[in-house]
């Protein structure tokens, strides 16, 4: 029974799981608020989960770990910045549509009330076509370099991020909240989404719970929870969408193309087409993922911001039990929770224990160790 579990979960996952458990148990004894930590973990889980979800289609279609995630993130950044740039125009346009087609509920009050939600939605809607085009090109490229996808993906990601660094400086953005004040042109390194869609998902249906539970005279438990229900629902919806898609005819063909390309081709599956679709999907999910991340984080990070964003996402899904050629939604959930849990817990617990912050080093070792483990595992053919 236990042996079976160990074999199924794999040693690294168990060690890291136990490590996280130990951190959670130690937390109250070193003066770290357990509930705040748990809450932070959940928030960070919600922030990152869609980005991790973006790994699934490509892994399933046999394109390997999506180290090219920055490409999707760039599409997301374009969507977000364009949505802010044209925020007023979009609202005007909607109002015009309302008067032209006589949509009675779409009034000016409704628009002002839901301005933030519309901004968020338009960011996603603008980002998707960019992601689709970039993903399609990227997929075509990966079809030509089968066997070397991961290394090439890494460098395609890096070079597109550095290319966009030039673009962010030169693109003719005009909105005063986004460009450098003294130069009058060029986007800022970080752009606040406050006033646009800050915490739009986090605050939607959020469960706030604040109470001091008195256990004894000397011990009061300070419970301060704020569950970002909307963000979790959004992730659940995206996960459900991916889950359903994987069960359609196309999804099944995609999995077949990933697990045995020769066999899939013999049964009439167009392997290259399936791979391209998977890359487009991954890129779109990446674009949506970064917008979800921004609404919780509060800032759009441009320039070198997306540079290393692929590694945590890759490490998360592997930590959740995925291999280089097989991944499920459960892997995403378990992996993101474990990874974000460690990221949240190590700084606070280690700070109180040793008066030093080792979280960066632990993050490096855990995340890259996990990827290394997955890469060196013998693939069962």
């Amino acid at each position, binding site marked *: 029974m236990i042996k079976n579990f160990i074999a199924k979960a794999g040693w690294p996952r168990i060690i890291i799981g136990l490590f996280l458990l130990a951190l959670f148990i130690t937390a109250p004894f070193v003066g770290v608020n357990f509930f705040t930590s748990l809450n932070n973990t959940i928030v960070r889980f919600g922030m990152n989960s869609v980005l991790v979800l973006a790994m699934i289609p490509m892994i399933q279609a046999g394109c390997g770990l999506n180290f090219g995630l920055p490409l999707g993130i760039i599409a997301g950044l374009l969507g977000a910045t364009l949505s802010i740039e044209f925020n007023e125009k979009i609202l005007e346009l909607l109002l015009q549509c309302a008067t032209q087609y006589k949509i009675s509920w779409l009034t000016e009050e409704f628009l002002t009330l839901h301005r933030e939600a519309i901004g968020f939605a338009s960011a996603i809607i603008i980002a998707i076509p960019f992601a689709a085009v970039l993903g399609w090109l990227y997929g075509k490229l990966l079809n030509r370099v089968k066997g070397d996808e991961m290394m090439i993906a890494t460098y395609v990601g890096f070079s597109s991020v550095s290319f966009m660094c030039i673009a962010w400086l030169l693109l003719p953005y005009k909105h005063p909240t986004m460009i450098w004040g003294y130069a009058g042109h060029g986007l800022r390194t970080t752009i606040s989404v406050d006033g646009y869609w800050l915490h739009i998902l986090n605050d939607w249906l959020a469960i706030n719970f604040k109470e001091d539970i008195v256990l004894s005279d000397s011990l009061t438990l300070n419970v301060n929870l704020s569950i970002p229900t909307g963000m979790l629902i959004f992730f659940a919806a995206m996960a459900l969408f991916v889950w359903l898609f994987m069960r359609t005819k196309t999804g099944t063909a995609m999995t077949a193309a990933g697990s045995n390309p020769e066999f899939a081709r013999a049964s009439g599956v167009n392997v290259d087409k399936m791979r391209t679709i998977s890359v487009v999907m991954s890129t779109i999910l990446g674009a949506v993922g970064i917008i979800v991340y921004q609404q919780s984080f509060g800032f759009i990070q441009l320039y070198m911001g997306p540079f290393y964003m692929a590694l945590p996402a890759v490490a998360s899904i592997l930590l959740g039990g995925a291999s280089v050629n097989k991944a499920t939604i459960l892997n995403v959930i378990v992996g993101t929770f474990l990874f974000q849990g460690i990221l949240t817990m190590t700084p606070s617990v280690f700070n109180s224990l040793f008066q030093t912050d*080792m979280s960066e080093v632990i993050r490096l070792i855990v995340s890259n160790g996990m990827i290394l483990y997955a890469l060196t595992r013998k693939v069962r053919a």
Partner: protein
Amino acid sequence: MIRKFFDIVAANAVPAVFIIISAFAIPLSGFSTGYLIQELLTRIGRNAFLILSLLIPIMAGMGLNFGMVLGAMAGQIGLLLICDWKIAGIPGMLSACLIGTPIAIILGIFCGHILNRAKGREMVTSYILGFFMNGIYQLVVLYLMGPVIPITNPSLLLSRGYGVRNAVSLSGIRAQLDNLIPTVITGTEGTQQFLNINADSSFFLIQLPFFEGTIKIPLATFIVIALFCVFIIWFRKTKLGQDMRAVAQSQSVADSAGIAVNRTRIIAIVISTVLACYGQIIYLQNMGTLNTYNSHDQAGMFSIAALLIGGASVSHASIANVFVGVILFHLMFIVAPMAGKNLIGEAQIGEYFRVFVSYGVIALALVLHAWKRNREQEANRRTLREALKK
């Protein structure tokens, strides 16, 4: 015919693009020829050894050794320790090598074993291994140096009492190898002026008639690099070198010919790691400061980009590629920010362009290589199928 043309273009596309970019950027930057030559000579001396360390794994068919950062880390640990012990000059460099060598050998063996478990994806694995070891390196340097590994020199340590500072001055060994045999080229007119300024020191002075200004040459470093090139040429002809080439051709054929494939591959990585360790020490003696937490990362990225810019591919690299690459890469490195500033009015654009090109070139070279390999496989399959039909 067209295919052949495509092959030739693909083989030389990267250096050609760079020559074109440089041809535009050099006049735009407005630097003088003398300045450019001086800078290039310094940078060849600084970087060539590191890049040469990449050649042997390519010979053994293991692709670009992104794990060379492991060697660089070993070298840096050696340098940190000699800084603490205050050993200066050439003895300092030699003792840094002496400390670095065993660490590099152990890391190399480790890396080799890992890569043997990940055949077919050596590059991405060695790349991630670099990140992983970076974590371990930080653990050692940031937390263990001080309490576990004794560091007595307070100027090395962070104010909290343990862990090494972000920037460490290597004043003890700065330019020690470069200036071991001081050599200067001057024009006939500049000679007297130069001698007046540097009257108290001795130089090998080379006078060229139609030359202006003075150029210093790091002769001793060049001699070391030349010796290394000779070593590589010799190594290719040894039994081990031949074994490596056989392994690169086909692991199964090499195995049936009685070559210990895995062992040969590990040796290739160990040699590369140890040489990268020496390369990093040479690199840092030229720089004079050690960026404790960044230097090794940059070393790996820049060396690989430079080698590929020189026209090397994942499966084939020569000594000529190294030197062409280091010249073209650094030429762009020097002129891009100035060119960007003069062209668009922002040096930042040139800076980003430089980063973009370094990564873009690696991506392009990897794509071209994989593409070519897949096309060859496809062609082989087609000929086989047609042969079966007959």
